[in-house]
């Protein structure tokens, strides 16, 4: 590998909600500091692995607002994965999960596509951005991490200590594991399911639930049956895990996501299992689903499968040999087959 070189990733445009996220700011929940980190940890890890980074390296999390970036003062090896976003390089369409070398001056555009809410742009190397409490993870509500504690904005120039060793031909990331249906989301009941009668637990599992338009990195609000409490809705505050489903007084469940507060005072009827958090995170407002109760053992088994998947690494295939949609091939034909390796 060659010595690290400095290049710049410049934001030519940035929709709302594009942030720097690493594996999260861990160890400070006891002081009220939110971990933040990626909404879809599997997609984040996949993008990082595809460029040879550790799974929890810092990457740009892109919302449906999209971004447009270019490389300055050198080229950068990048990978994009997560959701079904529409990607293009210098105006030419790319597969939705891809690795490539972003040449100096080249323009990479990521915008919302057919589905998905979060997409990750990983860069081979390190972001030369100061850390807060040991992490780059952005938590905009408290102004922690990222670029000055805020979402990325047009004109931001992010220094990259590139670890790129060679030019990459455009290759698709083969990640069927990212193509996850959202019809059923698995939960472990508790820690306060005893605040609800059995018929309310049944109603909670059956739904159907619709992801509300109010949803963001902090919480996904769910529309569906109104749940009633058997023992009131004020509890003395206790800890909140990611994926906790709290039910406030109005009976409308709220799923607490990456930017959640560390503690809270509403009963939590259930907790979404780790492997399904990213699936729900990718669901757009309007998506309909139900919950399925699983045991701790089943949840751990699902977690083990994800860990095994990541341990196997990421498979990439040069674009010319990848099976592509007719729409994508049409795009290639229109630009005279320049893309390929």
């Amino acid at each position, binding site marked *: 590998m060659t010595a690290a070189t400095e290049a710049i990733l410049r934001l030519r445009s940035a929709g709302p909600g594009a942030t720097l996220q690493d594996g999260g700011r*861990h*160890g*400070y*929940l*006891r*002081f*009220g*500091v939110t971990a933040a980190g990626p909404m879809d940890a599997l997609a984040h890890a996949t993008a990082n692995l595809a460029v040879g980074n550790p799974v929890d390296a810092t990457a740009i999390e892109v919302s449906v607002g999209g971004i447009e970036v270019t490389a300055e003062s050198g080229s950068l090896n990048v990978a994009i994965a997560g959701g079904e976003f529409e990607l293009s390089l210098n105006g030419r369409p790319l597969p939705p999960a891809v690795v490539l070398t972003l040449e100096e001056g080249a323009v990479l555009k990521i915008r919302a596509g057919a589905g998905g809410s979060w997409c990750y742009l990983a860069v081979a190397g390190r972001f030369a951005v100061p850390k*807060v*409490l040991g992490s780059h993870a952005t938590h905009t*509500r*408290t102004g*922690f991490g990222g670029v000055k504690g805020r979402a990325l904005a047009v004109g931001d120039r992010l220094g990259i200590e590139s670890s790129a060793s060679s030019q990459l031909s455009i290759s698709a990331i083969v990640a069927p594991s990212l193509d996850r249906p959202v019809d059923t989301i698995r939960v*472990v*009941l*508790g*820690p*306060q399911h005893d605040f609800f009668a059995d018929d309310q637990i049944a109603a909670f599992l059956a739904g159907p639930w619709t992801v509300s338009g109010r949803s963001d990195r902090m919480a996904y609000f769910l529309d569906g049956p109104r749940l009633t409490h058997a023992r009131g809705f004020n*509890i*003395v*505050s*206790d*800890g*909140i*895990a*990611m*994926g*906790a489903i709290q039910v406030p007084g109005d009976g409308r469940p709220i799923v607490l996501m990456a930017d959640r*507060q*560390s*503690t*809270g005072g509403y009963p*939590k009827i259930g*907790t*979404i*299992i*780790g492997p399904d958090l990213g699936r729900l995170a990718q669901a757009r407002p309007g998506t309909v689903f139900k919950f399925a109760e699983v045991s*701790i053992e089943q*949840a*751990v088994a699902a*977690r*083990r499968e994800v*860990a095994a998947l990541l341990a196997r690494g990421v498979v990439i295939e040069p674009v010319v040999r990848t099976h592509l949609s007719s729409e994508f091939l049409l795009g290639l034909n229109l630009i005279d087959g320049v893309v390929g390796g």
Partner: protein
Amino acid sequence: MTLHAAPRFLDAGEAALVVQFGETVDPAINDRVLALDAALRGDPPVGTREFVPTYRSLMIHYDPLRIDRAALIAIVKRMLEGLAEWRGEGTIWTLPCCYDPPLGEDTDEAADILGLTRDEVIRLHTEAACRVYMCGFSPGQTYLGGIPEPLKISRRATPRHPHQAGAVLIGGGLCTIAPFVMPTGWYAIGRTPERLYAADRSDAFLLQAGDLVRFEPIDLAAFRHLEQRAIGGEMIARKRAA
């Protein structure tokens, strides 16, 4: 050693375990939480990630691929058997607080509801030795008990507009010091110039669960002066060991 009721072990998903000692705000319950927290931090079981003490429970974040739930519970039970009483080894702090308008935004409103005068609110609040039960909600935000009975006010039915950074608030029979601007259902009765979270300070977080806080009334001029010193990096709160 006193005998205690066995805690409940509740699952918050497959990667967090809640060790619940009770359901109320009670110093004896919080003592148990802090004692277990101290024991776990002193000898963290392999596979545990973070311990989050709250009023009445300890949340243990763990990696279920490195330690399974049953093994973790067994370790916690063993620790609880040998656990000494938590003796309140926390720091005692004197924290300056300005209750004057415009900083004590809701002092008069709270006084009205409680049937007290403004001066009585301030006197009662500054006479109390407030125990830090937990930190949470935002970085460095601290929840305190020990509020005297006449100051116990319900939370607002609907939240008010965001308070200022450093607001000292009362609500639900408790007190909180809030370093970040947030909407609130509590009553902002004062403001401290001290920074509960300061990234540039060696102890980034000033207060810990188990500490005791006494509020010291200061006027607006003193607040402005101390605020400048705090921004300059100085610690404004004064401490003595318990």
